[in-house]
């Protein structure tokens, strides 16, 4: 064996490993609470993402490579979320991460992605601050395709005051970050419509008796209750209202669509209204196919959280489109592609036509969500005319 054959062998080996590297799967992080109180949202989101990735992989993957999801359960715990972010970045070396249900977890995790220049597609968490954590940074690696709280609070105020003509709203919120920030957004949104809440009441997560809060709202003469809280406590509000034989409409943030609210409140929760980016109804062929595929893969006839599933599904397609356009799995290149997405991405929530720009990382604008209504254990459209005809796909206006 002479030196030539050796070199030749080495070169072939290089080529072989080279092709092997090209066929390596693209690793994408997937983080959310898959157990615990927020798990109905986390699991639906995860299943939506997995469904989209399976479709993408079946169609040949991205850049000729398969997408491999690295799933991690953050249990809705901020500190665990931060650990998972570091594990996904340093150990798994993901090219991007999809996920986050809880605003606190997002806040605790995103810093690591920002530092590592790895894009994050926030597909469920709604805290307004999430896409604005680093106003002075050169580039912002956080994107979102969920309805931010500032959009939701304006929608809630508009729905209650303008559409239904209520003038004496009472605000009930929990004492978490989510509830307190939501309340201040809501008060500001009401002030723009020259309405002042007749009372603002709060409660702790885990409280089992809402009699005092509901009585105060009743005593103040409220004609509608606006909420910012999560499922179990929202159910206690509905139950306390039923117990006291006092029925006014319940309008609140999208958490009123949580399974823990719908199941625990039962009939008492019927009529509750909340902004939804996605209603589980086959209003377009694309949505019909998505709903059918979801139930075929995961069983059941009701998604635990349709909004989370749909946004999870869309987030995977947005990322795939960006990687395809970037022709690279480099963080900064994916970022550039996301901020200037050339292809229209037809999702189930909306059709994304240049959803992001360098200054705007929110794919969901205030015209996209519609109001959902709890009816017989499901969320249906509160105003079916909002989704009728050509209004079925509501697209972000060109800004």
């Amino acid at each position, binding site marked *: 064996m002479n030196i030539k054959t050796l070199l030749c062998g080495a070169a072939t080996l290089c080529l072989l490993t080279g092709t092997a590297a090209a066929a390596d799967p693209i690793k994408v992080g997937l983080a959310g609470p898959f157990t615990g109180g927020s798990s109905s949202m986390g699991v639906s989101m995860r299943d939506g993402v997995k469904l989209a990735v399976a479709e993408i992989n079946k169609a040949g993957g991205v850049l000729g490579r398969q997408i491999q999801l690295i799933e991690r359960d953050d249990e809705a715990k901020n500190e665990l979320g931060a650990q998972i972010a570091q594990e996904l970045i340093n150990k798994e070396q993901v090219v991007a991460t999809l996920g986050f249900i809880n605003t606190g977890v997002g806040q605790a995790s995103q810093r690591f992605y920002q530092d590592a220049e790895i894009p994050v597609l926030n597909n469920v968490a709604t805290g307004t601050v999430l896409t604005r954590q680093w106003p002075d940074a050169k580039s912002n690696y956080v994107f979102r395709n969920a309805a931010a709280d500032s959009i939701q609070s304006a929608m809630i105020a508009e729905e209650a005051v303008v559409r239904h003509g209520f003038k004496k709203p009472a605000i009930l919120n929990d004492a978490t970050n989510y509830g307190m920030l939501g309340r201040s957004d809501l008060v500001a949104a009401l002030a723009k419509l020259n309405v002042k809440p007749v009372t603002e009441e709060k409660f702790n997560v*885990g409280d089992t008796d809402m009699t005092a809060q509901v009585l105060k709202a009743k005593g103040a003469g409220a004609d509608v209750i606006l909420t910012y809280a999560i499922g179990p406590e929202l159910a206690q509000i509905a139950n306390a209202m039923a117990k006291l*034989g006092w029925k006014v409409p319940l309008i609140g943030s999208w958490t009123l669509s949580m399974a823990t609210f719908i199941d625990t409140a039962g009939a008492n929760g019927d009529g509750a209204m909340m902004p939804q980016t996605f209603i589980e109804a086959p209003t377009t062929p694309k949505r019909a196919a998505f709903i059918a595929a979801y139930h075929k893969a995961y069983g059941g006839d009701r998604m635990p959280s349709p909004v989370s599933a749909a946004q999870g599904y869309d987030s995977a397609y947005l990322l795939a489109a960006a990687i395809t356009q970037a022709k690279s799995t480099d963080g900064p290149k994916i970022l550039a592609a996301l901020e200037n997405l050339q292809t229209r991405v037809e999702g189930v929530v909306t059709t994304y036509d240049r959803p992001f720009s360098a200054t705007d990382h929110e794919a969901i604008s205030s015209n996209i969500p519609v109001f959902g209504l709890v009816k017989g254990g499901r969320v249906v459209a509160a105003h079916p005319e909002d989704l009728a005809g050509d209004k079925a796909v509501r697209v972000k206006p060109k800004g």
Partner: protein
Amino acid sequence: MDILAQLIVSGISVGMIYGAIAFGYQLTFSTSQTLNFGQGEALMLGALVGLTTVNFLIGQSIATPLAYLLMLPVVLAFGCVQGVVVEVLGVRQAIRTGSESGWIMATIALGIIFRNLAENIWGRDALKFPSPLTETALTIGPVHIQPMEIAITLGTLALALAVEVFNRKSIYGKAVVATSSDRDAAGLMGINTRLVITFSYALSSVSAALAGVLVAPVTLTGANMGAVLGLKAFAVAIIGGLSSGLGVFVGGMILGVAETLTGFYLSTGYKDVPGLVLLLIVLSVKPSGLFGKKGIKKV
């Protein structure tokens, strides 16, 4: 006036739950001067075992109210075993060696273990407990009340009454009372005080498990449901007095009513404050609790 009546009724039904858990603290404290800091977890385990049993029975196409009644003996038996486990693993050794604080750490540790166990068996989700009674509220005069809230009050009172009758009328009950008054003297009289203490732990967990299945239909069931309740019951036990069975129930009602009244008349944000202020006042004015007998410690 109507609102006041409503608030008091709602406060009492919450307070009875605190009382039932605190009653468990009182049972073991009187016989052994120790208590189970994992009482909230005993409640949670009782509720979850009850949930599984009820769902199983409903799966056998038994009506919910009947399933609920059939579940009660299972849960009470489970509480009994769980209490014995706590006593044997966590408390017995500490009593034997005369350790002042060993049982505190041991029962807290057992509580954490039970919670992790429950998280692994039942998951971390809050689960809906099927209500045996109608969820439509009754209207009595100006007051609206859920049937389950009445059941909570009656159930916990029945438990306390049963224990009281047992203590007064039966020979075994007298052994418990004797151990409570003076463990050493009772031992000299031939009473197996170790067994009495084990028994009091079993009874303590039974009362917690019962409280668990009573409160579960009006809230949600889950591995973390016991933490807050156990802590509040601890405050109740101190307010009412750890040596008085009546005291803990009155203490429970005081705390429950104080919470709803503050929530309405002051601010819902300060709902938990008056209970704790009351706790501080009781501790500084009458450390043995409102109904507590002053203990004389002979050296």
